[in-house]
């Protein structure tokens, strides 16, 4: 009997191993192009928060959040021009997240691409921001830079940044214009069901978005002038939650990226983004969903200087300021200021430093129990991007799927 089991197991293994070369099958298994990308982000943080209820919360920590690994696969279709692709990505969530897992599957999508168009289906970044700002982590200014998720009450940046999409992109390269449209399925959670949040793999379509952008190619971004201008309309259908009824939340995002200087070796960049959200009536700002559905506007601006003699980046200094106001509530505003510095130590190896100051107006401070906040951090980032069996050719670095600090600016509408 034991022998029979071994033979059956061996037979099963043989069948599995022969999948790539089935007898009488002329079509071979084509090896995919494989992109491996990732980054490690490790910082030493010190925070000092004044709580609205009185008292103080301070302390230090070593933080590895936002470190990630990305695997991309692509193959030509039978016409040898168009291609199919798939991406899987893992990242380490923040400690204060409500996600139950140590690893979050933030990218898992498949798609088909052609020379000027792409169709993507699966989990990836939502189309709820247009500009990357020079902060160490993508959630350092999340409340200001992204349209919030009106269907999740969890304390999880992942629910705001990522979702399941059916997205189509079309490029007009001669006009430097990119168009994108998406049906979005944002993660739906409530405050009583957080135990399952980390394992959500399905999403109900609950929104749509349309984007248009004028986007100068990377290669000429160091010419003086407008590099990027984008506009996105984002609509979310939100279900009944804690006493507030179904609602549709509309957000408009506008962004500009401008090169102020004429010296490509000493670049001055100005990035500005505004978000206006027209939501519904909410009883307070005390819960995440309430704030996501409330009427608000947010403006973020960043001035960056990049020192790059011989077009080789050495360092970047940036100052980012942000303001947000919940217009239906008195003194419910927030101000943020983030100076940051990046020293390029090697290809993809950066030393970073950042100070973050946030001051909430009295109306908002009492709702979130946070008056002012100071966070100082020092650390390093290590990013890499490698391609095996390059056949299709990269559409761009797979690291473009991640938040970056150097050579940043627009979140490509087509990405």
């Amino acid at each position, binding site marked *: 009997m034991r022998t029979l089991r071994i033979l059956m197991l061996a037979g099963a293994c043989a069948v599995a191993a022969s999948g790539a070369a089935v007898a009488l099958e002329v079509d071979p298994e084509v090896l995919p192009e494989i992109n491996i990308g990732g980054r490690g982000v490790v910082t030493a943080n010190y925070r000092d928060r004044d709580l609205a209820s009185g008292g103080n919360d301070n302390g230090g920590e070593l933080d590895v959040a936002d470190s990630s690994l990305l695997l991309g696969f692509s193959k030509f279709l039978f016409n*040898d021009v168009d291609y199919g692709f798939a991406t899987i990505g893992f990242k380490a969530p923040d400690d204060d997240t409500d996600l139950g897992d140590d690893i979050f599957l933030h990218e898992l999508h498949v798609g088909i691409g052609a020379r000027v168009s792409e169709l993507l289906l699966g989990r990836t970044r939502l189309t709820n921001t247009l500009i990357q700002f020079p902060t160490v982590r993508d959630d350092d200014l999340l409340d200001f830079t992204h349209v919030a998720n009106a269907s999740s009450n969890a304390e999880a940046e992942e629910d705001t940044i990522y979702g399941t999409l059916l997205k189509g992109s079309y490029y007009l390269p001669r006009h430097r214009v990119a168009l994108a449209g998406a049906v979005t399925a944002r993660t739906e959670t409530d405050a009583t069901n957080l135990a399952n949040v980390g394992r959500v793999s399905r999403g109900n379509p609950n929104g749509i978005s349309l984007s248009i952008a004028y986007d100068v190619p990377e290669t000429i971004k160091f010419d003086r002038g407008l590099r990027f201008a984008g506009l996105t309309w984002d609509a979310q259908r939100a279900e009944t939650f804690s006493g507030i009824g179904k609602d549709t939340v509309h957000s408009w995002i506008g962004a500009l990226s401008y090169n102020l200087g004429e010296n*490509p070796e000493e670049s001055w960049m100005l990035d500005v983004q505004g978000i206006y959200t027209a939501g519904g009536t909410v009883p307070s700002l005390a819960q995440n969903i309430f704030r996501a559905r409330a009427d608000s506007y947010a403006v973020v601006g960043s001035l960056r200087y990049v020192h790059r003699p011989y*077009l080789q980046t050495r360092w970047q200094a940036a100052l980012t300021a942000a303001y947000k106001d919940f217009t239906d509530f008195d003194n419910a505003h927030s101000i943020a200021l983030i100076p940051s510095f990046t020293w390029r130590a090697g290809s993809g190896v950066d030393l970073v430093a950042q100070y973050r100051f946030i001051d909430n107006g009295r109306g908002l401070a009492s709702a979130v129990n946070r008056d002012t906040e100071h966070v100082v951090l020092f650390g390093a980032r290590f990013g890499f991007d490698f391609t095996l069996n390059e056949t299709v050719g990269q559409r761009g670095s797979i690291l473009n799927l991640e938040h970056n600090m150097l050579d940043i600016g627009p979140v490509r509408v087509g990405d």
Partner: protein
Amino acid sequence: MTESRKRGAGATRRGFLKGAVAAAGGAAVVAGASAAASAAAPYKGGTGSMMFIPGHTMIGAHTNSPGAPPDDEVEYREFDLTFELLEHELIPRVKFPVFAFNGQVPGPVFRVQENDWIKVNATNKTEAMHTIHWHGVDLIYTMDGVPMVTQDPIHPDETFTYRFQARPAGTRFYHCHWSTPLHMMSALHGAFIIDSPDDPVRAMFPYTRDYVLMLESFDTVFTRKQMNALLGGMKRVNKLMAMGKLDPATHGFFRDYDEMLAAIENGWRPPYAMGNSEALVPDPNFFAINGKCYPATEKIGIVRDEFIRIRLINGGFLVHHMHLHGHQFWHVAEDGNPIPQPLRKNTIEVGPGKTQDIVVYGDNPGFWTFHDHDVRRVMNNGVYPGGMLTMLVYEDMENPPYVPSIAINE
């Protein structure tokens, strides 16, 4: 297959040969000759180069480099060559971007007589930089086509006129010498045949036809990637350099070695350093003869009792061992120079930069494979047979008992 009898000078492509005219070039951007005072005095690096002059622009420029006789002293045979970007088909369903002379792969075959004075107007219609090196031709050094050694690279929309005397006789070739690994692999090469009435090979073997076989290896992925990167950024970098906004070191240009050392001291990161190199090394996946892979290669024709001459030119950087079935041919010339006592062979090595001439005598009617015996080069993207393979075909067989068909995936 290129049959040189059909593709002699003036009969190849419309506009290629303009005729033996001695017209002066247009508005000349004449770089001064190196002013070496004596052999003992050191030369000042970068003399004559526009690359170190801020504000220079070569758009529409017509550069006549010094050193050759003026038009009124000798009678030039004048040719026009262009650098063009196109998509070339190696075999059905396999296309890749190439730079090509006069829009063809390989470039047109020059057919000139020994000691002819040659004038070639090379116009750059791409956004990359180029030069032309006349491989195996003994010419004036300012016409040798080595960028930053004998001339500045030919900029986009610039015309550079090469003038030289065609010598010595034999099988020579020409290729771009800028970004050589990419540009040779992306098809910027062609045959330059210098004939002589005193050809010792013809005296020994009265051949009636000769053929030029340019042996090529292409890494289509490397080429496409490099081409995209180059086309994406080169035009902008050139413009910024012309505007004086970038140091020549950005392109890796230095007047001399000391200046390069000083740039490194100043923080410039050499592109070859371990921490700064992409380490892209081409690994060819397609192998071609005259721009085509088997079964798209052209066949070589012969009839009984005929001598034919085959000129093999290695336009790539791999070593090829060309084997002819059913015949012992004569190896009659190497690097274009006649071999006094030809050797009988059936396989001949053609290394990078080499030309080998062989003569075949039609004494064994049939269909005979002629191919690189390194079977890795007789593949199309790893599928055998393909690549560097063609066939010697007797044209005067009446009823051959077996006629070849095609198998491309054995």
